[in-house]
């Protein structure tokens, strides 16, 4: 869904001058992107609104792991690979996801539905091993549960 630039521009106006406003604007633009990324046009828009050079916005965007500058899948699967998940079998979960989705961490499935990302701690170690799909966390996972979980998202996409 591509909206008219003036509408998008008006949406981020409210963030200008706010503490953390630029990150809010970038979050807002990325969340509207079908392919979960910030396009060159997004970056230019933010630069002009906030009165900073585009290269500086680029520098900021590429710094943060929640932002992407290339298209990603509709759903982002984040797999924690830090120690608390590692000691209870996170590497098996990542391996199972890689196998099931036929992509490596960092890749996107051919149907454009999922991007798999290895990430730092998600802060839900109490239910480790955990993954996050978009903004939803799934914990106490076993690799056997994964196919059914992903199937839910596939069904939703087809509906």
């Amino acid at each position, binding site marked *: 869904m591509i909206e008219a630039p003036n509408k998008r521009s008006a949406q981020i106006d409210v963030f200008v001058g706010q503490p953390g406003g630029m990150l809010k604007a970038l979050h807002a633009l990325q969340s509207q992107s079908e392919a979960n990324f910030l396009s060159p046009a997004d970056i230019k828009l933010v630069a002009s609104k906030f009165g900073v050079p585009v290269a500086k916005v680029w520098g900021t965007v590429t710094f943060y792991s929640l932002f992407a500058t290339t298209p990603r899948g509709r759903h982002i699967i984040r797999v924690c690979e830090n120690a608390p998940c590692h000691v209870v079998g996170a590497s098996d979960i990542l391996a199972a996801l890689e196998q099931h989705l036929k992509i490596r961490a960092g890749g996107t499935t051919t149907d454009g539905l999922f991007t798999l990302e290895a990430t730092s701690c998600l802060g*839900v*170690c*109490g*239910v480790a091993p955990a993954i996050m799909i*978009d*903004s939803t966390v799934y*914990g106490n996972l076993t690799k056997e549960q994964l196919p059914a979980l992903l199937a839910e998202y596939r069904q*939703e996409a087809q509906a």
Partner: protein
Amino acid sequence: MKSLNELKSLRERLEKGQQLAEKPLRTIIIGMGTCGIAAGARGVLLAIMDELAAKNLSDTAVTQTSCIGMCEKEPLVEVVVEGKSTLYAYVNGEKARRIVLSHIINGEPVTEWSVERALGGRV
């Protein structure tokens, strides 16, 4: 925003339900922190709402709280009947329905699923 929209509409239903009964006889409290949700609290909440509606139990309030710290035992569900509280651990949809039947309708807590039992080790 799949889960959040769902949560929101559930919450609206919840609050409506709560307002109907001025002073609920029975309360079911579901742990809806990130840990709880990650462990499946959403499905538990749905099952409870569903079971209560099916059994027409409009005098039972359903509300939420956050994590009490026993993340590993999530989803946690507390049932309060006449001031007496029972906390259930590792609840899933199926267990939730049985808790409604046994504890809410028949007044018999399902003690083997209580957290005191669970604290002795994973059930």
